[in-house]
């Protein structure tokens, strides 16, 4: 088992494997997005309180989930990399950051769009909104740090350390609605309770969430492949690959 793990942790094998996987993830992401959007915009009923504006939930919530989840995954890979000095885990972490920042931005943006009709303001300084904004800043900070460090090894480790420090923010975002009484809605999907919203809405959101997942994986794998080529361009296997 251990041998196997190390086998896949080697950039060369990983490169081959991921090349085969990317199209699968990519296409299923596209298909699921279409289905999800269809459910969201044509099948789900109009909300009796919020009218049509609520449909933004199908983008907002999956994006918000992903923004936090990706950060945790980055922190996980960063920690693994620091502990075991595996090159690949740092690359995973780097590959995920832009997507995470994108989803954070989408969550903020759709939230703001939604906030205008719901709360009458684009932006309020509510705990969840603020902590989500901080998450965006963290993503940007980490990417800026990577950009500023020329030496890839040093950049990897410095970025991983920062990611770890910032990870504290994710539970704050998630629980902010519980800890402070905020304008923002509390969690209505949870594993322990029965969901409090219409089934079709839930399905639509879940489909969109899975699509976002698949998209993230596809893009991350693609970026990792590029990173691998860049970093390992002096190794024999990359040279062989390029010559092919």
């Amino acid at each position, binding site marked *: 088992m251990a041998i196997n793990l190390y086998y896949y942790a080697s950039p060369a094998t990983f490169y081959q494997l991921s090349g085969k996987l990317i199209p699968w993830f990519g296409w299923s992401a596209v298909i699921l997005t279409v289905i999800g959007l269809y459910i969201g915009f044509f099948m789900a009923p109009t909300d009796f309180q919020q009218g049509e504006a609520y449909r933004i939930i199908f983008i907002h919530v999956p994006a918000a989930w992903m923004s936090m989840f990706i950060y945790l995954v980055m922190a996980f890979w960063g920690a693994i990399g*620091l502990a075991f000095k595996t090159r690949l885990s740092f690359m995973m972490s780097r590959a995920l950051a832009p997507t995470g920042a994108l989803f954070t931005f989408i969550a903020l943006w759709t939230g703001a769009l939604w906030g205008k009709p719901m709360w009458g303001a684009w932006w309020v300084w509510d705990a969840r909104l*603020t902590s989500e904004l*901080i998450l965006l*800043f*963290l993503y*940007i*900070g980490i990417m*800026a*740090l990577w950009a*500023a*460090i020329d*030496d890839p*090894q*040093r950049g990897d*480790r*410095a970025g991983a*350390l*920062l990611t*770890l*420090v*910032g990870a504290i*923010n994710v539970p*704050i975002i998630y629980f902010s609605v519980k800890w402070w009484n905020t304008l923002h809605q509390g969690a209505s999907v949870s594993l322990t309770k029965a969901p409090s919203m219409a089934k079709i809405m839930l399905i639509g959101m879940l489909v969109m969430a899975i699509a976002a997942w698949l998209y993230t994986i596809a893009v991350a794998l693609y970026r990792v492949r590029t990173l691998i080529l860049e970093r390992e361009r002096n190794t024999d296997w990359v040279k062989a690959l390029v010559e092919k």
Partner: protein
Amino acid sequence: MLAARRRGDWLTSQFFFVMVASMFPLGIGPDPVTLKLIGPGVVWVSALLASLLSLPRLLAEDYRDGSLEQMLLTPQPPVLLALGKSLAHWLIYGIPLLIISPILGIQFALPAEAIAVLMLSLLIGTPILSLLGSVGAALTLGLRGSGVLLTLLILPLYVPVLIFGAGAVDAAMAGTGAESHLSLLGAILVLTLLVAPWIAAAALKVSIE
């Protein structure tokens, strides 16, 4: 340890806060009701900015003249070094701020009780800023544009301190009791005290390579 040797810095830091915090009434207008309203927030934001302003110097000089290398080569564990640096930062930046904060409070027409809470919140909060700041300073050591980068990395981490710190004073003024805010601040302090020096030490080692 070392930074404390510079006597002049002490006084300058104090002036700095007074000046930053005095700029707000100038920019905003002298209405005492407004001033009172924004007072705690402004003092706290000034504290954050002052910490940011003094952070780049914390390690950069040692890095450039090679003494940081030498410190890492002493038998002392790097964690102690990082802790010492945070302490030094707090001594030249936090303490002067504490001493001067009552004056700022008076400038903003805060009631006496609120000033006491303000000082208490600064006493708990500023060490957190120094500890987190040392992580940021260690990470950005020797990088190009490190000053602005440092701000970018560190400000998001400072936000909770700001919220609870200013929140405590606001709560005291509103009469709802500042204890919960202060105890949260205290919890953050304990957490950062346990975690930040290790991360800063690791970052130092990475940066010096």
